[in-house]
């Protein structure tokens, strides 16, 4: 193959690939464009691709006139809290499942997969009763606990296979070197599992950040409402949908994720490559 031909092929491939990427990303682009259009341009027929004039009015209104920032804070707490709780529990649990032996261990590991199957719709009322019984109804804590239900099995499973990939000898070495088992866990296993923990934490945070249904039923209070249900209930009512504000809200809801993932993206794939996907 001659050099010019390969260059042409490369250019063609690049053009094609980027076209695909842009098609995939088009809804996001449209979201951004809509959010900076004045609302008067919104219902123009036919719709215009580019805004006639750019306005940040919707963002201003969202930030100053609505509880958006409260929802944002709630969502951040929720994602952070859920991730913390889930990772703490799952890391210990996975370590136990991988490196300790006791009766029922294998059965427990299998049960983890089974709990995936529970449809959240059916857990919701018993969960709600539980939360009310504990005096936690309408709090972020109740949502953190609820999110733990669906995030924990996945996190545990991911971390378990991740930790399986860490050689046994490392822990043995630490034990011989004078550590007890918890010290060996902290000194050796944890640092080794860190990429997996970060990756799992990201998946958990995504789940918690984006969850809608539990938040809808368990929390009906602006003080504890996260973005997903907050934005919907605030901007989508049966008599009106505030598209401009919705799109502005969507952009701002996605912004923290973009920032976080720009930094941590490689861990997502690393989490999978380091054996987490082997089951």
């Amino acid at each position, binding site marked *: 193959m001659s050099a010019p031909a390969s260059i042409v092929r490369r250019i063609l*491939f*690049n053009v094609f*690939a980027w076209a695909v990427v842009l098609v*995939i990303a088009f*809804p*996001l682009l*449209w*979201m951004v464009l809509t959010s900076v259009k004045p609302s008067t341009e919104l*219902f123009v027929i*036919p*719709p215009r*691709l580019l805004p006639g004039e750019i306005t940040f009015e919707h963002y201003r209104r969202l930030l100053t006139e609505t509880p958006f920032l409260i929802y944002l804070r709630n969502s951040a707490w929720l994602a952070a809290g859920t991730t913390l709780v889930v990772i*703490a*529990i799952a890391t*210990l*649990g996975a370590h*136990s499942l991988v*490196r*300790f*032996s006791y009766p029922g*261990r294998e059965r427990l590991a299998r049960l983890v997969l*089974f709990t995936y*199957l*529970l*449809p959240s*719709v*059916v*857990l919701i009322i*018993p*969960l709600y009763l*539980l939360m009310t019984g504990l005096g936690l109804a309408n709090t972020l804590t109740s949502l953190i606990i*609820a999110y*733990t*239900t669906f995030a*924990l*099995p*996945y996190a*545990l499973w991911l971390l378990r296979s991740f930790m399986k990939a860490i050689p046994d000898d490392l822990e043995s070495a630490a034990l011989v070197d004078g550590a007890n*088992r*918890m010290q060996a866990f902290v000194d050796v296993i944890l640092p080794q599992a860190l990429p997996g923990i970060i990756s799992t934490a990201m998946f958990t945070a*995504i789940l918690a950040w*984006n969850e*809608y*249904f539990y938040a809808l039923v368990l929390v009906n209070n602006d003080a504890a409402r996260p973005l*997903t*249900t907050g934005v*919907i209930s605030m901007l989508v009512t049966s008599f009106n949908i505030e598209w401009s504000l*919705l*799109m502005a*809200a*969507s952009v701002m809801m*996605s912004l923290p*994720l973009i920032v976080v*993932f*720009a930094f941590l993206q490689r861990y*997502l*794939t690393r989490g*999978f490559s380091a054996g987490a*996907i082997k*089951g």
Partner: protein
Amino acid sequence: MPTIRAASASLRLRSLDARYGLLGALLIAPTVLVFCTVIVYPLVSAIYLGLFSIYTPTMEGEWVGLDNYRRLLASGEFWRSLANNLIWTAGTLTLQIVFGILVALMLHRNLAFRALARSLVLFPYFLSTVVAVLVWRWLFNDLYGVLNHLLLWAGIVDLPVDWLGSMPNAMISLIFVGAWKYFPFVVIAVLARLQAIPDELYEAASIDGAGAWARFTDVTLPQLRDVLIVVVLLRTIWDFKEFDLIFLLTGGGPIIGTQTLPLMVYKEAFALNQMGGASAAAVLMMLIMLLFMSLYLSRARD
């Protein structure tokens, strides 16, 4: 003699393995606790509630035995919802896998601004379902939606297409949006695996005279097999259970054209206030998933 036995018994209690076992149990205890309180307890109550006729707001009702199950299995709606559920799951899963592999292959190659391209492609997965659905509903809008406008402008259609309100459009749109939202998960997994395939394998295949397609089917696909088995399993479970996306996009309509089992459970529980029927439907749904999963796992093991 007895003293020796007692000594050895206490020695056994203090034995290292017993202490380790205890520590292991201690570490797993929070998990077990969470499982019991927030998963097993609701699960058991679902099975229990399924045997009653229960008015949701009061959670009171009377024993009806297996009547809920009989009623469900005799109703066309349950079977239709199940069929919808299977169509949706199979459709969106296939698209996710095919598209996910293709895009992963694309992103694995040397592409200008590859990091940016990756972020853009992975983005739908990070996007909140609520946001994703709203954006798509805005794109699908009959009057102001850019999708219809593009088709009209290109002369492909004469009238705006009713994307979400009629069949089979609604199911197709749903499957499509679902695929768009979740295919990045497949990309992440496949991309990770692709990076781990040694180049020598490709070189060897090239030396053996394999073309691009043969390299894909003979080298790449077998290497992806393990990843795909797990990805398919996870995505099947998640897609089968999907509630938010369908509820927000079509609400199950038109009629019950896109109503899947989770939506039916929701309708029973909260629209009709029949917690008993809802629990029964959920238990059935779980059994169906369990069946599929064990079939799949036994197949995948071969």
